[in-house]
């Protein structure tokens, strides 16, 4: 582990330790927050009982679906829009202001249309995440050196081969930014949609535990989601660093 990584770990450990002390000493009321060790213990009990299995599978499955759809469709849309400069000029203002509009206001509309099912959650998730991927794809394609297009022609590559073998890897750092954003937005959108209104899922579980004043269950679920989201982001960050090191020449 690097020195910076160690400092980072110590900061997190200190904060958790401080929260533990504050809860155990009664400085923080247990009806507000329970001690981190109690959260971990409650989570372990819940996971061991298997009571969460169906909700975990449903929520993580939906997050995975939202992320996959956003990345694939966002990338395809980005390529198509990049190839049509007039369409891009027309759409640019929408992209620039997209995240200024709370997309979630359409969630009730989607429920009214599709009913209380998986569909509205997936759609609101994709609507939240896809534009980040489109913007990242456009940025990435803008930054592909023009000379690579000439190299492709010298090697007599077709359009598909050029996109796959040259444009995609050349734009990869920017695409990776889009992927990271799509993952974050996917998590946020699915959990938030479940929290607002859903027949099942971890977000719904948290909302129910909150309504029942069941702090042990609520914090256990929150801890679970924090751990999963942190792990996924750590993996993505690690991959990003690895690719960046190749390109920047830092191979340490």
């Amino acid at each position, binding site marked *: 582990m690097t020195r910076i990584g160690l400092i980072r770990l110590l900061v997190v450990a200190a904060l958790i330790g401080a929260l533990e002390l504050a809860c155990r000493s009664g400085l923080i009321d247990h009806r507000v927050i329970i001690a981190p060790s109690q959260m971990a213990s409650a989570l372990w009990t819940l996971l061991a009982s298997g009571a969460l299995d169906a909700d975990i599978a449903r929520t993580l499955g939906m997050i995975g679906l939202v992320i996959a759809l956003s990345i694939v469709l966002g990338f395809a849309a980005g390529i198509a829009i990049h190839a049509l400069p007039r369409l891009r000029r027309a759409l640019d203002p929408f992209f620039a202001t997209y995240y200024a509009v709370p997309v979630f206001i359409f969630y009730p509309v989607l429920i009214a249309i599709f009913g209380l099912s998986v569909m509205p959650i997936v759609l609101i998730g994709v609507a939240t995440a896809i534009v980040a991927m489109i913007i990242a794809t456009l940025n990435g394609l803008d930054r592909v*050196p*023009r*000379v*690579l297009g*000439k*190299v492709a*022609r*010298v*090697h*007599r*590559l077709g359009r598909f*081969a050029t996109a796959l073998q*040259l444009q995609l*890897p*050349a734009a*990869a750092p920017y695409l990776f930014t889009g992927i990271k954003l799509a993952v974050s937005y996917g998590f946020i959108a699915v959990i938030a949609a479940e929290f607002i209104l859903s027949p099942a899922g971890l977000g719904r579980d948290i909302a129910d535990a909150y309504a029942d004043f069941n702090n042990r269950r609520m914090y256990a679920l929150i801890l679970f989601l924090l751990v999963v989201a942190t792990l996924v982001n750590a993996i993505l960050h690690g991959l990003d660093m690895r*690719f960046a090191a*190749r*390109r*920047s*020449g830092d*191979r340490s």
Partner: protein
Amino acid sequence: MNAAPVPHEIHAQLSGVTRTYPTVPGAGAKMPVHALGPIDLDLLRGEFFAVVGPSGCGKSTFLEVLAGLQQPTAGAVTFEGKPVGGQVPEGIGVVFQEDASFPWLTVWDNVAFGLRRSGVAAPELRRRVEDAIAFVGLKDFARAYPSQLSGGMRQRVCIARTLVLQPRLILLDEPFGALDAQTRLLMGDEVLRLWRRTGATVLLITHALDEAAMLADRVGAMSARPGRFIEIIATGWPRGRDSTIVGEAAFGEITGRLWERLRGESLKALGHAAVPAMAAE
């Protein structure tokens, strides 16, 4: 790879070639720009031909038209007797001024890129890639990424990627433009070595008169836009030359003659009226 050049056989030919761009990019008015020509040139098989000219005279356009990367507005281009148009013919390799190495691939994979596509058997591919990497002096860097190399080394990666495909016509578009003068001289020696070994016809675009005078059998001096050849000078250098010829009197004479032909054109390109050499004194 060691094909002996056949003297005076026409390898590539441009006849009455012009290139006009319909608009000036970024300009308000839609004014067509006559960038090149008319150009008539016979490139002889196995010769080293250099093109020099003022900035913006159409040197790179000339190369791209010859390569098949751009269509001429008028005239015809042939390579090995077949018309060039629409796409780059097999047998032509191009090294660009910009760094065109692939940063996501190692040096080895960069060089192997074209061969992998052509379906060459693995042992043959390995042999040719290693040979090309060794030729450009990057054997110890085969597993390095371009970001770990200097600008000159990255350009050598691009040269190796071209060389490994065994092109019969190698087009070099100011490949050393970003390098310092000493490195350029050494890279010039490498290009001469490459030229001798492959027996390929080489066309070099450069803005450096000394580079053109040192490397080429013939140097085409191009006018300000629209670029056309105002003189083609035969250098008369032996095939086994290297950068040490820069100390010879003939080198100074060739360079001086090129500058004499290009001075007025360079002033035109800068927007000045052509003036006699001593007028300013």
